[in-house]
């Protein structure tokens, strides 16, 4: 790289850097400041103590943890599985069609996809009401019972988000050198053995990447429960997830410090978990 190219490099990242500073780093610092102060005065960990003592905090943590667990596991297992299968399809048009189909739901933006699911989940209007009735659900209230929500949100998130990951994994599978695959085949490896011993290890970095990105998004669960809460008039509680609780603190209780404290807790937890993915997945190591 010569000096001129280097200069352009800086230009290219400058837009992103500016936006990152303005909408990523500065708000984070502001939240840190808010979380240790109240009305401008330093109060130590008071805000955290208040939030931890809130009767809604622990349930919200459990709700989010359960959801993230369900979602990450289903994402890692099914996305990789589907990507390998789609990659293995020899018929060109069929493979293309499958990728396209997986990807389509991702094109529907967050809130509207939840609205769509509202109709699917309500037995009185659902196109799959027969299935819902067969599972013993008579009304929307039954379907969105608190115990079912982690699964409901996982299904919604998987439907909306998995497609783009399948496409990314597909691209990653294409990057595996043909010689390696050929060598495996000559050594007598079947599709399952190839997937397990060749493709999976070589996808490790991508899987970690998917894990990190999804973890960050998953802990911030907000739109889905928020819309369901509104649609069911709070039968899905408005304090289901941590971000909803932070929202209530800020805009219902007028307590921006408490809200910031919750956000900081979320940040620390997400950073910690991401670190596991990054180091276990050797994401920052060069080949």
């Amino acid at each position, binding site marked *: 790289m010569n000096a001129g190219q280097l200069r352009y490099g800086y230009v290219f990242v*400058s837009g992103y850097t500016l936006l990152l500073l303005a909408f990523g780093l500065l708000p984070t610092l502001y939240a840190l400041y808010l979380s240790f102060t109240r009305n401008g005065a330093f109060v130590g960990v008071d805000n955290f103590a208040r939030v931890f003592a809130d009767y809604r905090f622990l349930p919200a943590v459990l709700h989010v943890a359960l959801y993230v667990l369900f979602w990450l596991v289903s994402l890692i297992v099914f996305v990789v599985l589907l990507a390998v299968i789609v990659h293995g399809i020899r018929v060109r048009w069929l493979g293309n069609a499958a990728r396209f189909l997986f990807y389509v739901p991702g094109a529907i933006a967050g809130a509207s996809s939840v609205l769509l699911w509202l109709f699917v989940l309500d037995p009185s209007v659902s196109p799959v009401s027969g299935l819902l009735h067969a599972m013993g659900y008579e009304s929307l209230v039954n379907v969105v019972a608190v115990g079912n929500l982690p699964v409901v949100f996982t299904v919604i998130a998987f439907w909306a988000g998995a497609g783009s990951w399948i496409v990314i994994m597909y691209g990653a599978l294409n990057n595996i050198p043909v010689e390696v695959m050929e060598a495996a085949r000559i050594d007598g490896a079947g599709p399952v053995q190839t997937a397990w011993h060749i493709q999976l290890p070589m996808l490790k970095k991508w899987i970690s990447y998917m894990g990190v990105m999804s973890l960050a998004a998953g802990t911030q669960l907000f739109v889905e429960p928020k819309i369901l809460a*509104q649609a069911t*008039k*709070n039968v899905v509680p408005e304090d289901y997830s941590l971000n909803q609780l932070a929202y209530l603190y800020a*805009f219902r*209780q007028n307590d921006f410090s408490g809200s910031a404290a919750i956000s900081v807790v979320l940040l620390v937890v997400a950073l910690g978990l991401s670190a596991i993915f990054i180091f276990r997945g050797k994401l920052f190591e060069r080949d």
Partner: protein
Amino acid sequence: MSQHSSSRRRAARFLTVAAAAAAGLLALSSCSADASGGGDTSLGFTQAEQVADSPITVWVDASREPAVTAFQEAYPDIEIAFETYDGSAGGSGSFQSKIALMDQAGEGWPDVVFSTQQNDAIWASKQTTSGEQGFAAPLNKGFLDEEFLDGFAEGSLDYTTIDGTVYGLRNDLAQTVFFSNQRLLDEFGYEAPTTWEEYAELGDKLAAEHPGYILGSLGDSFMTYVYYGGSESPVFQSPEQGVFHSDTSDANAEKISKILDGMLANGTLVQDSFFSADFASKYADKLVGVPGPVWYTGAIFQGGLATPAGEISVSAPLKWEGGDVAAGNVGGGVWYASSHSKNLEAVETFLEFVTSAEEFQVDASSGYPAYTEAAEKWLDKQAEASYFVNDDFKTVMSDAAGQVWSGWNVTSWSPESAWAKIVIPGIAEGETIESLLPAWQEELENEATVNGYSVE
């Protein structure tokens, strides 16, 4: 060469985009405007600088859109923009959340807001933590005419009056009465119940003799007002400011819960929301009787269920055997004016129009107007249409307005959310309300604590 220049062009384009983005950021960060200017405090609040003929923004729920349309027709010269929101229905609190955001930004407030809840004055009258004056403008300190304010039904502005200052205008009254389908009662040979005990007995008889017919629904969170407020159960009380009291183990609460459990079990109470997609198709000709607020007239019978005139009769709210008549209160929306409005004159015209003018309150509103003069015309309109079977429905309804039980109060949060969180999913799982009472009380008390109330 050409490749070189094109890459330079690309870089230039990129720089332009980056510069534009940076400029946008600057613009964003500089919009923490100061809300000064004006400063006249003669109306009991600090006015924003008034801009004559400036447009006003109104937030309404879907049912109140006709109010804006009627206003636009009556006053084509006043420029008005409206946004539809959920009206904080079900205690969603969206009114408060949105205003909190604007308070933080120091700008962007709407001029008039309609809320379906009765408790918004509690927070909207308060100064914000950042020292901004409360959103709701005091209305009886010179802003609105005393004479106009006196036109509201007695007690109808109580919920929005804090320390003698009125912060909101009641759109409609919401006292409960008992509605019966006289045609069905006659057909089955039943009498309309007058007490809760008779209501339960009617449920047993109906379930045994005419299964499939119903006496109401528990699917909406405002049933907490109908059944617990209406049965004088001390579930939601605020004896003084900042104090909350709830006793779901009280005898009345226990009794009404048992009655409801029995009716859920025998099928005369259902769990579908009155406003669900298929309520009308399932129950339009199955609803024999139901306790409910007077706004059921327009919103449920004439609206969703489309019951023809001459079938529904109205009787006094249910009471306990040997007890006095007590009505519940189920909403009754409220109009608020913004203390930050730049065109208070238009706001005044709008508020007076939507609460008292015939064009909305009588012609287009489904509820019983809180403004007395409009209420009389609304009652006349129902009489003219011979909608109700009994001629004395006017006295029944206006009497009930004065019989709302005073033991159910408003606080800074809504009683509906605890009901929605605990009771609705609980009964959907097949549990009895009686078994849910302790959990319901705990949730109410937790909410009170979180909202800064002391529980006694």
